[in-house]
């Protein structure tokens, strides 16, 4: 008797397993299900918004692509009177101003991060760290205002004349010192992306086990050699990720650049000359576009900006993700 009932129960058990073998927990309560599906909808709607954004901007930019084709990306004539639009000068302005920003901000940020994390005592690292972090909180329009009325005159008076005098033969520094222009844009962008790069570098440095540092010092390394060996060398990928994220921020930055770059879509080698970036021309002309083609061309610039920033941030995420995975494995 017992044998039989045991067998039946076993069978029932097996049958029940089949129905209860679920990878995802499924809630039976109606409230739970409504809650779950509305949250799920809210999350996936976001993906939809992203796709819609791409689709709509592409549609608006289409006439310009049709009209100009590849010429749009390789010519630098931007003239709303003759309806000739080529984005090369804007791309150039964006790339160069972002590169200046990186050249200035990356070493600076790494230095700040090293000092705050590895050298400074707490009483010093707390306020200095705060000052750097707060740079990220200041609105871009305030940077623009400051850049226009403080930084640009400062560059015009104290920085650019000696550069022209002594390095003018380099072509990078030729022409009249205007203040506003590529250089001012690069400097203001450098200040704006510094908190981003510093924060990520500090996080990356913090993840390195203390024993690595002690091992280096134990080998007789000086402080600087220790930082090079134990800290910088093992965080190269993380610093690269930080740099790329900084680049992403610089490329899309609009207001501050608009106010200090001079807004002249022209390709000049000199860093003193005024220029124009993809983002700044949008701020400048979008609301006052003269013709449908002009508007479409501007939207095409926006689409390019959109795609570039998606790509850059995708790459940065990939790099950071790989770094994270390395640390997870290491532990």
């Amino acid at each position, binding site marked *: 008797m017992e044998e039989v009932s*045991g067998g039946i*129960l*076993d069978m*029932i*058990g*097996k049958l*029940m*397993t089949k*129905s*209860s*073998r679920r*990878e995802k*927990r499924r809630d*039976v*309560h109606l409230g739970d299900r409504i809650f779950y599906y509305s949250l799920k909808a809210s999350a996936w709607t976001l993906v939809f918004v992203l796709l819609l954004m791409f689709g709509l901007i592409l549609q608006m930019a289409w006439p310009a692509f049709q009209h100009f084709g590849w010429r749009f990306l390789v010519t630098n004539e931007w003239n709303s009177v003759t309806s000739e639009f080529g984005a090369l000068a804007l791309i150039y302005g964006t790339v160069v101003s972002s590169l200046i920003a990186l050249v200035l901000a990356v070493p600076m940020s790494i230095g700040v991060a090293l000092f705050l994390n590895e050298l400074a005592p707490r009483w010093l690292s707390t306020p200095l760290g705060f000052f750097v972090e707060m740079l990220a909180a200041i609105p871009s329009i305030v940077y623009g205002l400051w850049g226009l009325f403080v930084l640009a005159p400062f560059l015009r008076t104290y920085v650019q004349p000696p550069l022209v005098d002594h390095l003018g033969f380099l072509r990078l520094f030729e022409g009249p010192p205007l203040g506003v222009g590529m250089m001012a844009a690069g400097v203001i962008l450098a200040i704006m992306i510094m908190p981003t790069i510093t924060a990520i570098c500090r996080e990356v440095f913090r993840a390195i086990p203390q024993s690595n540092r002690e091992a280096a010092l134990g080998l007789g390394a000086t402080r600087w050699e220790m930082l090079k060996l134990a800290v910088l060398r093992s965080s190269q990928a993380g610093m690269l990720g930080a740099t790329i994220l900084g680049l992403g921020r610089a490329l899309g930055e609009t207001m501050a650049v608009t106010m200090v770059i001079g807004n002249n879509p022209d390709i000049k080698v000199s860093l003193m000359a005024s220029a124009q970036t993809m983002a700044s021309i949008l701020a400048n002309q979008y609301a006052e576009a003269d013709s449908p083609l002009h508007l479409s061309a501007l939207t095409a610039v926006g689409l390019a900006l959109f795609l570039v920033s998606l790509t850059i941030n995708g790459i940065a995420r990939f790099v950071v993700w790989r770094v994270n995975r390395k640390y997870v494995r290491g532990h």
Partner: protein
Amino acid sequence: MPADNFEREKAIVNLQHEILNVDNLHAWFGDFHAVKGVSLAVQQGQVVALIGPSGCGKSTFIRCINRLHEEVPGARVQGRVTIGGQDIYGRGADPVRIRRYVGMVFQKPNPFPGLSIFENVAVGLKLGGISKRTVLDEQVERALRQAALWEEVKDKLRQPGTSLSGGQQQRLCIARALAVEPPVILMDEPTSALDPISTAKIEDLLHELKKSVTILIVTHNMQQASRVSDKTAFFLLGELIEYGETSQIFTNPARPKTEEYITGRFG
């Protein structure tokens, strides 16, 4: 045959008081077979201690009894568990309702962060639909008294639950479970994170509680098992090796493995 009759009567009586019956329970985490065909019955008003070396499946076992095991991704259960005659893995069984009948106290004291002492105890009732202030006050006080915490916290019910000491937090968690008046309470090593004085307090509490609640308590501490429980179940590698009266298990175990464990030869 009078003797046979007597045995049968006794069995029926026992069955009537049987509150929990587990039959051939298996549990997995992914491919890991954590509980292997455990069967056991618990009578109302008893304290059952589950002992065994760590990783032997005793925690997993009790988590199957309130269907919390399935909260872990990849977890799976097979077998039959009845509480008060109701199959909790049966078709249409509602884990939310089952959990109202089976309270749980966890290894680490885990009062809800950000909620006051009062709210911590009241939250189960409140979210169960009781909103009358007087009822809540009354039930919270009852639960806190039952958990022997009332005197210590009655003047600071508005303070956060996390502000209490570890032992007090654990008694708060017991009060939280008691507030909804479950007939069964599961305790997963409730004193392993506590100091000896707090532990003694909670052990005293168990003696009081078993008048109204059936308790299954997982413990690493064999002295504790022998002090608090009526019955003891010894688990090893996911199997139930021996289950019987605590006095018998500790003085005269039937299986050699049990004896080895109890005398401290492994585990």
